[in-house]
């Protein structure tokens, strides 16, 4: 109902708005959420009284849909609560929820946060899982990573143009980490690409950027380089994937695989077809040796219809080695300990490869998208914010969303030297640690600064160091 009063109606009538259509438009009578179902008859009666005519003689305004009032709930229908937006579930989702894992959103995907045991908090569970992956072996569902297959004569040339590093030297059966830039030189996405056969490649993208990267590649092939013979398709939905990481990863997987994955036969950054023994029988899959955790690690991909069988087969094989599943929280801890970036947190739309300590991935001998604009003076300056590792001192907890300052007592506005991008308790380093972007960060290793969060009333002394807290030489990857 609109707030039309009896006085308003009498005033309208006195001013000459004596047709019901005029009355409606002058006073807004009948245009409220009730669409006149309660207010109109009263209003028409008042007009009739003023005009000294019977009510029916006043008439009614033209009816429009919805004729009957409609509750707001009819319009959203089922699109409320869990139906508010679509959800994407991996082939292993029922297993995760069966273990009591809380699901968290990653784009539309639902991923298990952690697997708390009886009496354990999520924090304790994630720390146990992260510790176990470094000391024994862990398994994590990575089905949600974007997966794009490329085929055609010119794939290597195409990859050379869209990635900062070189791809024409990648042999069949090998994988490589790659960095993509936007046209302005800022980091767009990272991932790996594997050469499955002479003219057949598999690219992985971050979970959240999969659609953006696919669209970018389609656009480039159709608009800029129609002469390149490259065909693309998304295979994210085709493959269920798990990463198996830790000192016992090889022993566990060797029990269920038909191929030799010894260090000599299957070194770091290899890919190969394999058969996996599961409760459903033999399943054909793809085996990769790559690592986001920093441990000796493998990824196993099987057709999504066999995802659960693969998952349970690896868990059964790993039981004697103390295998534990780990969720996104422990996955984050493991990668923060290693200083592996995440697009969104560290690569925040303002950072170059150089800022992230990956300048050596920008090949000097070839062109790629974004490279020309990397020469802008502002991107080459010495005062860039650069990726660093921060360790909280004095036994303090690293504050969330903190800015980094030299003096926490300086008068506002306190000059900001940088900010924390990701943080965690490191069960392996036994300290609160963080990654951050810091003004001239690489020149500040060894300095003590302050991470402050005025909103939370938090101020913590932090020590600046390189963005890697575990195995800085990367020896664990190659054992």
């Amino acid at each position, binding site marked *: 109902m609109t707030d039309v009063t009896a006085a308003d109606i009498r005033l309208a009538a006195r001013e000459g708005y004596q047709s019901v259509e005029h009355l409606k438009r002058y006073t807004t009578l009948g245009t409220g959420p009730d669409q006149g179902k309660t207010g109109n008859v009263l209003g028409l009666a008042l007009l009739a009284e003023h005009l000294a005519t019977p009510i029916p003689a006043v008439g009614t305004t033209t009816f429009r849909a919805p004729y009957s009032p409609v509750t707001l709930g009819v319009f959203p*229908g*089922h*699109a409320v609560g869990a*139906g508010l*937006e*679509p*959800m*994407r*579930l*991996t*082939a292993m989702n029922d297993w995760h929820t069966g273990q009591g894992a809380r699901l968290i959103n990653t784009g539309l*995907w639902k991923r298990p946060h952690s697997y708390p045991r009886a009496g354990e908090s999520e924090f304790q569970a994630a720390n146990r899982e992260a510790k176990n992956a470094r000391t024994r072996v862990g398994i994590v569902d990575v089905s949600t990573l974007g997966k794009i*297959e490329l*085929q*055609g*004569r010119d794939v290597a040339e195409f990859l050379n143009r869209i990635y900062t590093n070189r791809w024409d030297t990648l042999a069949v059966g090998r994988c490589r980490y790659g960095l993509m830039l936007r046209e302005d030189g800022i980091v767009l996405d990272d991932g790996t690409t594997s050469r499955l*056969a*002479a*003219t*057949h490649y598999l690219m992985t993208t971050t979970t959240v950027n999969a659609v953006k990267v696919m669209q970018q590649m389609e656009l480039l092939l159709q608009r800029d380089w129609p002469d390149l*013979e490259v*065909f693309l*398709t998304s*295979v*994210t*939905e*085709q*493959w269920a994937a798990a990463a198996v990481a830790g000192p016992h990863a090889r022993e566990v997987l060797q029990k269920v695989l038909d191929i030799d994955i010894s260090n000599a036969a299957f070194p770091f950054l290899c890919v190969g077809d394999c058969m996996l023994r599961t409760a459903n029988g033999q399943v054909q899959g793809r085996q990769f040796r790559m690592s986001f955790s920093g441990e000796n690690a493998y990824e196993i991909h099987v*057709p*999504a*219809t*066999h995802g659960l069988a693969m998952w349970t087969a690896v868990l059964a094989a790993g039981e004697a080695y103390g295998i534990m599943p780990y969720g996104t929280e422990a996955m984050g801890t493991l990668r923060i300990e290693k200083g592996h970036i995440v697009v969104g947190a560290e690569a925040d739309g303002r950072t170059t490869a150089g800022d992230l300590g990956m300048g050596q991935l920008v090949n000097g001998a070839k062109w790629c998208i974004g490279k020309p604009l990397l020469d802008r003076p502002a991107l080459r300056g010495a005062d860039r914010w650069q990726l660093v590792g921060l360790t909280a001192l004095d036994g303090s907890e690293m504050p969330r969303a903190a800015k980094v300052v030299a003096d926490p007592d300086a008068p506002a506005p306190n000059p900001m030297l940088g900010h924390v991008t990701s943080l965690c308790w490191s069960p392996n380093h036994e300290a609160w640690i963080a990654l951050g972007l810091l003004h001239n960060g690489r020149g500040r290793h060894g300095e003590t600064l302050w991470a402050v969060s005025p909103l939370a009333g938090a101020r913590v002394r932090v020590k600046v160091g390189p963005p890697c807290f575990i195995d800085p030489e990367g020896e664990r990857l190659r054992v």
Partner: protein
Amino acid sequence: MSKPKNTGTVLPGKNGAATSRLTLQEVTFGVTWNLQGDVANPAFLEEVRSSFDVTLPTAANSVTETPHAAVLWLGPKSWLLLVGGPESRESPWTNFPAKRDALNSVGGALFEVSAGRVAWRLAGPCVTTVLASACPLDLHPREFPPGSCAQSLFGHISTLLWRRAEDDFTLLAARSFAHDIWSALCAASAQHGYEVLPPAPIG
């Protein structure tokens, strides 16, 4: 009777309004391959003909069928090959790597996506009413006759819709959305009454 894999908690049987005017059935495929290439390239066409013995539909959003396979147009250079199941070693729908290599060598491509989708067959007199409640396509037979396919939406979810006969549609969606799209199909069908049939290979 085996429980459908991708249909949440709804088991085979009648649901919703008392008079069933719709059947919903999960359909499975032995092989789903994405074929890409240029029909202006004779070597590509010859390879497709000799490898699969199918005719590629070239009209936008059209489908060709053989007794064993269906070919759905996805784009000017892209098709989806659907097969119930390779019956024998001699079937054209085996030995993916050799077929991929052969197509790559003539400027085409073949991608293995057999596990990437789930599909449901929707049939019955009110099937277009149910689909229209959540799909923006004009489903009038004049615009979308039998033998048509189109990539569209059902609710919020991307789908590939294929009309096999006036009252007989197959709806394909990415596997990770199976739970949601099944809920949406049941919700849209409830007022008409629907019967869930046990899953079957595409026929």
